[in-house]
């Protein structure tokens, strides 16, 4: 973060170029991203993202909390897909503990995770189109997003910072009628995607603003650490859900959309197709939802049911112990990666055998994706920077942590 530096970070090379400051409060930066641009007329000579304005030291805070207390912190990293963060952290700690998660909890996790992906992509689609100048799509996207947030509220009591996945399972059983509501949404949703596509995919203005803009090759994308739709938009067929499955994703059938052009339109197509694929996974999860427990059978780690606490001495003792002194996790380290809506989200958790994590590191997909921005924009037009930033779907909370 260089905002305190009195001199500009970029030295203007010649008299021809000038330094232009974009942000930190530019509407298209989705948060507080500052981009320093060196421009020659309308062309970009150099571009340098300046991040860190939202740094809150979450990784440091995690080291002072019990393992279960970190879950609400993970929501706040990537606030558009809180459940993906919950999932990644929970999977990492469960791997450290060697916990087996019952199938119903796994399927619930997949179901909620895909709804989160739809939610996140809807926000991306709406704001990305808004940045480029298409106002209407935003309103349609937020109409569907509102339905998903209501589903989140129904199952977890919270619209955004859900903290629904816990270590060892999920927090609560879904309420009566929840699956019917999800089914109703999943049935209606493909028609909504058609609606967005009608507004954008064939729209000549949209195509002019996105086709051939901010291109990046597959080699560059891999070398720069890009993942998720930013990588698949350049023709690399890799999706962690399919290729290195976790949390029962191997039981689901879905396609991984790939486009070869590597431009803004290709990334747009990948994400819009992903909306449909996620909806398919949601339907499969609903159809095959197994019965059974929603928490692992590990009384020392998982909080007991409220009912048991009132009737069983043991349960009350375990509850008290978990709340007051946490649970010890065997020594070791794990790196757990999941496919977030933005790419590879990874949690590296180190345990020293105590009840608090020794180190929690989040691998932010956006941070790596952000590094592709200079490759995408240098030598191109200034107006396309906004399209490029939108197309890598940045969330500053995740970048800065």
């Amino acid at each position, binding site marked *: *973060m*260089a*905002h*305190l*530096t009195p001199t500009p970070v970029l030295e203007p090379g010649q008299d021809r170029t000038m330094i232009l400051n974009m942000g930190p409060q530019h509407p298209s930066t989705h948060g507080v991203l500052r981009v320093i641009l060196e421009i020659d007329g309308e062309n970009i000579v150099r571009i340098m993202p300046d*991040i*860190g304005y939202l*740094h809150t*030291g979450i*990784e*440091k*805070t995690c*080291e*002072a909390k019990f393992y279960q207390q970190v879950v609400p912190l993970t929501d706040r990293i990537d606030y558009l897909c809180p459940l993906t963060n919950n999932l990644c952290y929970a999977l990492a700690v469960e*791997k*450290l*503990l*060697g*916990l*087996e998660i019952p199938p119903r909890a796994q399927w619930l996790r997949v179901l909620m995770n895909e709804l989160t992906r739809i939610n996140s992509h809807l926000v991306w689609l709406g704001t990305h189109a808004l940045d480029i100048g298409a106002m209407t799509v935003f309103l349609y996207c937020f109409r569907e997003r509102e339905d998903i947030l209501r589903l989140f509220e129904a199952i977890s009591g919270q619209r955004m910072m859900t903290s629904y996945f816990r270590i060892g399972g999920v927090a609560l059983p879904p309420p009566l009628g929840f699956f019917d509501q999800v089914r109703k949404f999943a049935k209606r949703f493909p028609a909504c995607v058609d609606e967005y596509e009608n507004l954008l995919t064939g729209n000549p203005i949209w195509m002019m603003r996105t086709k051939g803009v901010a291109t990046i090759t597959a080699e560059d994308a*891999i*070398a*720069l*650490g890009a*993942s998720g739709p930013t990588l698949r938009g350049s023709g*690399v067929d*890799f999706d962690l859900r399919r*290729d*290195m499955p976790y949390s029962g994703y191997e039981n689901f059938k879905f396609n991984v959309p790939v486009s070869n052009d590597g431009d803004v339109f290709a990334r747009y197509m990948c994400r819009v197709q992903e909306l449909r694929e996620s909806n398919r996974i949601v339907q499969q999860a609903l159809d095959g939802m197994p019965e059974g427990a929603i928490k692992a059978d590990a009384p020392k780690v998982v909080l007991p049911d409220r009912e048991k606490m009132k009737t069983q001495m043991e349960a009350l003792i375990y509850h008290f112990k978990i709340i007051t002194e946490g649970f010890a996790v*065997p020594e*070791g*380290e*794990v*790196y757990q*990666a999941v496919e977030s809506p933005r790419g*590879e989200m*990874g949690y*590296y958790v*180190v345990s020293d055998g105590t009840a608090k994590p*020794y*180190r929690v*590191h989040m*691998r932010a997909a956006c*941070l*790596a994706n*952000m*590094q592709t921005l200079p490759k995408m924009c240098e030598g191109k037009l200034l107006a396309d920077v906004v399209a490029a930033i939108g197309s890598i779907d940045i969330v500053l909370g995740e970048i*800065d*942590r």
Partner: protein
Amino acid sequence: MALAPAITDLEQLKEHPAIARLLAWNAASVEGAKFDRGETSILVNRSALRGACVLLRDHPSCAFNFLSDVTCVDWYPSEPRFEVIYQLLSIPKRERVRLKVRLEGGSPVVESVTSVWPAANYFEREVFDLFGVRFTGHPYLRRLLMPEDWEGHPLRKDYPVEGYR
């Protein structure tokens, strides 16, 4: 699913393609290895790090073409204090491996891998910012997240979680 004990014996692990490659290249480069909870970690000699990375990226039997993450763990007050951790991913082989380098607390310096994977740029800047580990050969080693005039490195264990320093 009970936890299987970690395998730390190099003899048992030398069948692993990445470890076998490294041993064939330079036996002194591998200081140790661990297979724990389905994940392989290789402790690499500090001076051999960049060479090992190039080898693992380019050799067809490994093909670790994607650098997922670079991070650091501070083991204060024990020495060597810092452990820099590289998470490698092979997209064609669908495999992961973790490289580690141990650094002394006095002057933690390691060679940058930005020339091997340009993705390391931001990751190394972040480690420099939050831990004070310096990467030689990095093109632009400046603070990434904290303000430029910040004193200290917040993720070090001797840096307090709250309150004034």
